[in-house]
């Protein structure tokens, strides 16, 4: 098993891509910790699934924009698991508007959760990983961070910011034997996505060259690869998982 004995924190791990990452990591042998803001039922479901796989899943109520919550979560994880090897930042929101209709709050909230939240967790992980001279950080971005998306100037800005943050940190942490990478999914079939009107879903499918939409496992598999020793020589990289949606 690729991640046997390792411990990981996945933010936004109660639903969607995050939940899938948590479960797949547990399947590969890792103990995981996930946070939730309001999806406590879903978080407990994820924990149950993982326990059936014979691993431990800690669930922590934490708002990713809150530094104290984050510090508490790291402390708990390190105590209970005896250490930390992996951080996956995945928690993200979107509030779509054209810019002339976008309020300051619409902007701030997306930037705070999507970008500042990553800063808070990346900083805590960096401080820990550099002391132990090993670690893996994977930041979930989006192809809309590589390109601009209509109606998502806040979301695109935050996702683009994650990419440069990832690259800067790859440079700072390289000498401490820490890999920092980003994964950029295109359209992913999550519970949320199931509510999108079918014309928009079809538009997304047509954008891809493989003619399909990613499952959450498609993204999780790439995250796992970046957390394994198979990718030990990859750092500061952005890997798209978009079926060719944006080439």
């Amino acid at each position: 098993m690729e991640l046997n004995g390792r411990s990981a924190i996945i933010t936004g791990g109660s639903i969607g891509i995050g939940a899938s990452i948590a479960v797949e990591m547990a399947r590969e042998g890792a103990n995981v910790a996930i946070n939730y803001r309001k999806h406590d039922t879903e978080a407990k479901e994820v924990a149950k699934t993982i326990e059936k796989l014979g691993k431990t899943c800690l669930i922590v109520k934490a708002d990713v924009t809150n530094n104290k919550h984050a510090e508490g979560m790291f402390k708990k994880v390190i105590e209970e698991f005896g250490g930390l090897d992996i951080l996956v930042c995945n928690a993200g929101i979107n509030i779509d508007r054209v810019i002339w209709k976008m309020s300051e709050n619409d902007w701030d909230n997306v930037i705070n959760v999507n970008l500042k939240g990553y800063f808070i967790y990346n900083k805590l992980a960096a401080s820990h990983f550099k002391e132990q001279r090993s670690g893996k950080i994977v930041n979930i971005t989006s192809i809309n961070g590589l390109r601009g998306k209509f109606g998502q100037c806040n979301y695109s800005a935050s996702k683009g910011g994650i990419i440069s943050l990832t690259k800067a940190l790859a440079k700072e942490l390289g000498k401490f034997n820490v890999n920092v990478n980003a994964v950029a999914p295109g359209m992913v079939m999550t519970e949320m996505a199931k509510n999108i009107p079918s014309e928009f879903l079809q538009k997304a499918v047509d954008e891809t060259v493989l003619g399909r939409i990613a499952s959450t496992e498609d993204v999780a598999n790439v995250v796992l690869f970046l957390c394994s020793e198979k990718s030990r020589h990859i750092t500061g990289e952005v890997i798209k998982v978009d079926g060719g949606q944006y080439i």
Partner: protein
Amino acid sequence: MPFKYFGKINFTPYTKVDKFSEYLHKGKLMGSRCKKCGETYFPPRADCLKCMDDKFEWVQYSGKGTLHSFTTIHAAPKGFDDIAPYTLGIVDLEEGGRLISWIGDIPKKEVKIGMNVKVVPRIFEDIPEIKLYYTIEKP
């Protein structure tokens, strides 16, 4: 991890004990032991001083020791002026051998000859380049 990554300014690009810096990067303080006569050395040396044999093995040191002497350098040589003044300490290592390095987080008035100390491997953090060193801390 070449030896040239060791020290604030390194003057020794090549040495037979090159692996020292590789271990240091991993956080380990390593000395040498002569395979023939068993004599140990810190700092490590490839050729045994005692029996002159050239086969040696690496031995891990705990870093624990006592402070033998120290001085605070005010007038620094080239390349060290940006960190002056700094305090150099000589440590007698528990397992034998000695090293010289900087006093780390020990407050000035607590630094006393004979005190117990611990040598901690470190990586220079605020520069992009990899540069390895160690500091003398309270145990």
